[in-house]
């Protein structure tokens, strides 16, 4: 089991895509089983026993597991009963617990990942590449995954996996390769290194930490949710609750972190607070005014800043110039417009200011947002939202997919604003970030807030058990059943 580590954008995925034939190297050779090969397409790689589980799952939601697995490999066992039998066989052999006739859209993240692994095994792969397989899993699921992987290793398969999480890398990998800016900087074995040294190799300097020391929490309540309920109707016409009886409050100067496995209602919670979805019941109060049913624009004007989870879908107009992106979301506010009219000159000037102040690396403000790198796009968004001095900032995965330097800057900006009385709702899959930045932690599971915790004392493992529904209540109190000990 070989681990590949490196900071965001180091080129790990790119390297793996080359190995899997999805991209072609400009120079250099690849050898499989000692023989040099030229991989022109995934089909080439597959035929040589290389299989890959991508960072973003490659599954068709509207297909069954069976269809997803046999796609592209119909020659092996057809697309019917024989294939189904083979899937069951593999699933049982490695304890994957995959049901072939379920729709993929009905599966959770961990199950989807197992489908991905099964897809690779079904094709008889001998080399298994996993790109950041643990990023979206809770610690317990990670353990289960590694157990599966060890089984595979025992069968003689080669496993190559990518991760940022140095702890898990050190615990399971047999070899580690560190890459930085597209080149290998070190090859180490776990026994001869420790997380600190590995981190320094990765970044070239010390890793930043999201730790916040002094508390700035005040008594003034900024956001309050009471009994918020949101239902959605699925294709069958069945109504179900995606948010159920949500109650929370965030005070000025407080960062409230929400932990949860993706798809448990965090996105809907954000959308309800932003006004993109109208709650069926309950109230949302911002700074003393009821905004339960106010339109999104009103809420933004009233001082909610929003760093969306998916910046390409919700944060930017990719083909518009930077200054128009600076206007986005604040078109009714100064300096972007006056009366009903835009003020492009002022917006441009202010964009220049943001670019300078937030260190957005760009040659100018007339280039399209699409031509910036992800980290710089994110800095622009943060700068834009902060420029309007929000009372409440909703930050969903604010550092997802940005490099370490940008990450540190964004953390700094959140901390600074918090000191000045900003209330922050933080949602993140990165439990270290969540624990490090938050003043209070809540855990979301199946549309409900099931547990809370004190970030000063909680560990990622404890949070993880609550995220899978195994624990609830106040996780810190010894009186309540909690998973694992505290440190």
């Amino acid at each position, binding site marked *: 089991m070989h681990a590949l580590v490196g900071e965001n954008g180091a080129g790990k995925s790119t390297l793996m895509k080359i190995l899997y034939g999805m991209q072609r190297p400009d120079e250099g050779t690849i050898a499989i089983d000692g023989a040099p090969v030229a991989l022109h397409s995934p089909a080439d790689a*597959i035929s040589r026993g290389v299989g890959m589980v991508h960072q973003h799952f*490659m599954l068709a*939601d509207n297909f069954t597991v069976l269809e997803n697995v046999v796609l592209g490999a119909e020659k092996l066992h057809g697309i019917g009963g024989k294939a189904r039998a083979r899937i069951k066989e593999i699933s049982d052999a490695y304890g994957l617990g995959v049901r072939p006739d379920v729709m993929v859209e009905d599966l959770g993240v961990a199950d989807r990942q197992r489908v991905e692994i099964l*897809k690779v095994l079904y094709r008889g792969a001998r080399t298994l590449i996993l790109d950041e397989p643990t990023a979206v899993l809770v610690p317990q699921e990670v353990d289960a995954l590694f157990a599966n992987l060890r089984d595979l290793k025992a069968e003689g398969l080669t496993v190559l996996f990518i991760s940022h999480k140095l702890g898990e890398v050190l615990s399971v990998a047999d070899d580690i390769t560190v890459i930085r800016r597209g080149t290998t900087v070190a090859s180490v074995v776990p026994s001869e290194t420790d997380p600190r040294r590995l981190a320094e190799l990765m970044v070239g300097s010390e890793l930043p930490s999201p730790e916040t020391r002094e508390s700035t929490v005040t008594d003034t309540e900024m956001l309050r949710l009471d009994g918020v309920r949101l239902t959605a109707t699925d*294709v*069958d016409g069945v109504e179900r609750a995606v948010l159920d009886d949500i109650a929370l409050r965030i005070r000025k100067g407080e960062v409230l972190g929400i932990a949860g496995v993706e798809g448990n209602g965090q996105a809907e919670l954000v959308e309800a607070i932003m006004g993109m979805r109208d709650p069926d019941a309950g109230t949302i109060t911002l700074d003393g005014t009821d905004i339960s049913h106010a339109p999104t624009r009103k809420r933004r004007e009233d001082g909610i800043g929003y760093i969306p989870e998916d910046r390409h879908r919700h944060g930017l107009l990719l083909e518009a110039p930077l200054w128009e992106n600076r206007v986005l979301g604040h078109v009714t506010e100064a300096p972007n417009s006056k009366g009903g009219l835009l003020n492009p000159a002022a917006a441009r000037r202010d964009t220049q200011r943001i670019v300078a102040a937030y260190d957005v690396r760009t040659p100018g403000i007339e280039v399209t947002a699409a031509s910036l790198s992800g980290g710089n796009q994110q800095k622009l968004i943060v700068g834009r939202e902060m420029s309007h001095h929000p009372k409440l900032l909703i930050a969903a995965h604010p550092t997802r997919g940005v490099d370490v330097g940008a990450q540190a800057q964004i953390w700094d900006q959140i901390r600074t604003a918090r000191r000045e009385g900003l209330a922050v709702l933080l949602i993140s899959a990165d439990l270290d970030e969540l624990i490090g930045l938050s003043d209070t932690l809540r855990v979301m599971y199946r549309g409900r807030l099931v547990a809370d915790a004190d970030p000063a004392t909680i560990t990622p493992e404890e949070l993880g058990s609550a995220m899978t529904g195994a624990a609830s209540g106040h996780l810190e109190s010894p009186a309540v059943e909690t998973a694992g000990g505290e440190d």
Partner: protein
Amino acid sequence: MSATATATKDTPTAPGKKPGSRMSVATVLLIVAGALVALSVLRALAGATQASAFENITSSGQIGAALSMAVPIGLAGLGGLWAERAGVVNIGLEGMMILGTFFGAWAGYQSNPWVGVLAGVLGGAVGGLVHAVATVTFGVDHIISGVAINILALGATAYLAKRWFEPLSDIGGSPKQSPQVDDIASFTVPGLSDGLATVENHHWFLVSDLAGLLGGLVTDISALTIVSILLFAGTFFVLWKTSFGLRLRSCGENPTAAESLGVNVYLYKYAAVVVSGGLAGLGGVFLALVRSHIYNEGQTGGRGYIGLAAMLFGNWRPGGLAMGAGLFGYSDALQLRNGGATVHALLLLVAFGLALLAGRRLYRKRYVAGAVSGGAAILLVLWYALTDTVANDLVPATPYIVTLLVMGLAAQRLRMPKANNKPYRKGQGT
């Protein structure tokens, strides 16, 4: 609960349930049966003067005409289905149908109609190929490319008709019309057809309606109609039961995933769009060689678009599409053949259906929606009672209104292929 098998994406409850938006065959049959019974009851209730208008609703002639009007729409829709299942919206169906009518008749009058069929399919397929080049290779917006193809097909056929058909005026050609093409064979099931006709003419409660319905399906059916029905079945088989179909559909759901599994997405998209054009071309041929015997400028009359609507109505499935096409063909044939009196009778039937819908909605506690349907039903009944026919110059609106109504009722439950109408570039997926 175990540590792993838990959270579900977007659906915290009821995991493992298949989306059941598609209607089963049994449900469809049940609806048809219910409508027939309702019709029989209504006819019994209506006075003798109105009875013949009601009889037209299920006469074998009406059903036969409905079928022949439904087939071209269905074929266009089937073309749309192929393309959209592979993720390409094809609004150029209209243009591809035009190519089908033109080349079908052009080759047909020179040799025999079956050569015409082949030429028309090829003509449509070439249109599909152009669409594939524009959308798949060059990445042009699908709808824009489709609109451009419609303009081009219209221009090109008008030009070619002028060049090729005008000199043939002594055998019936003109700049807008081709010479006559021989008939394509049509079949009548011997015995059965006559027997059913006899039963139908007795006007027995329910039995005659059924006889009319079946009679229309076994009398004077064109060979091309049979081919079309086979194509529907074949499409279902190919797209849902073969690995080719699985790959093709995967390009419409998640092309990046398909690409990562070694599927040549461009190839499948090309195949789908070319087949799509061929099917639309066949629809055009049907118009030119079965419904008429000539190419006639403007013959398609927007059926490509209506086919697309039928496909949406059918939720991107052949069965649903057939129903959608049937519905349009039926209402068009009804207004065309029988005019105001029968459309007037139809009002009562629709009112009846709306009343049922209202009841269902009220039962489900959707009071506003229920009240709307109920109100509409009452208005229709009033309209029916206060008049005794629908003005003949308004009757042609029937199929369009029916389509709008049905789309309005059905559209929200639809689920299109996920990657439909999305640009796809090889190697650029995330």
